[in-house]
């Protein structure tokens, strides 16, 4: 299991994976804890500010379960290293805060046939989709074009809490074979009116990532 990004999504996702008794977690993150992270990045505390997120994450997760094996990778994800970083993972959890890196992970997961649990949040809105390579659409099928970059977007901390927990749930479902994964459906959570909705997503035969000419 790999969690890429230990922020608002990666925090609850990895906590619930560790608490569920996952034996081995690969954590990928190259950032340090900042005070503004603390409203949502529940792996880290005030006393961790300035330290690497990997350090506080490893400490927190091994406190939850002493036999968990945590592999920390202190690297920025790039097109060059992404295949190597995710290779061998049973599932990759999307804890990124930007589309370029999400697209890299999406492509690498499709290429290496690793399930990818996509999540993203902003304000009181979140989205979630499980990508099972060769069985359903990928992130690029659902969101073909990168949404504009915003330097700052406020996030109500509980929003990634909701989506990150659902990412952990999708991950646990996949590895245990329980239930029906969120494949070909994008879940939209809107905390403003407290609704959960689904958008049907089909695999695009001309998708540059998972279509005929992709991979």
């Amino acid at each position: 299991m790999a969690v890429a990004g230990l922020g608002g999504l990666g925090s609850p996702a990895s906590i619930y994976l560790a608490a569920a008794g996952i034996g081995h977690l690969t954590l990928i993150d190259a950032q340090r804890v900042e005070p503004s992270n603390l409203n949502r990045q529940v792996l880290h505390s005030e006393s961790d500010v300035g330290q690497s997120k990997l350090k506080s994450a490893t400490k927190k997760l091994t406190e939850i379960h002493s036999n968990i094996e945590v592999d920390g990778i202190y690297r920025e994800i790039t097109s060059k290293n992404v295949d190597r970083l995710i290779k061998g993972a049973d599932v990759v959890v999307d804890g990124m805060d930007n589309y370029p890196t999400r697209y890299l992970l999406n492509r690498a997961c499709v290429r290496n046939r690793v399930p990818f649990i996509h999540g993203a949040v902003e304000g009181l809105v979140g989205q979630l989709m499980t990508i099972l390579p060769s069985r359903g659409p990928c992130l690029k099928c659902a969101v073909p074009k990168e949404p504009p970059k915003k330097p700052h977007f406020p996030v109500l901390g509980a929003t990634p809490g909701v989506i990150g927990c659902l990412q952990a749930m999708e991950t646990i479902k996949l590895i245990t074979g329980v239930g029906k994964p969120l494949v070909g459906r994008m879940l939209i959570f809107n905390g403003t009116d407290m609704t959960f909705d689904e958008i049907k997503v089909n695999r695009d035969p001309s998708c540059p990532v998972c279509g005929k000419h992709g991979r």
Partner: protein
Amino acid sequence: MAVTVKFFASFREAMGKKQESIEGVNNVASLLDELVRKFGEKLAEQFYYSGTRELRKTMNILVNGGGLNLPHDLDKPLKDGDVVAIFPPVSGG
């Protein structure tokens, strides 16, 4: 028969409804025009940058589950029975 349009998140808040049935449109651009004609400025403000007809980059449209490459795919033809979903993809984590 008509095209069914489903709105999500901020688009739904602007519309005040979950979905709408629209008749007499033949492509995505004409559908957006018709929606703005029917629902007014508040929706136009969601679709386009203020005072322009330039589509906001925060907009994502799927037709029958297929994501559109906008604005290039605005001329994508629509037919009766098609289901169009409009949502603002979020980016943070």
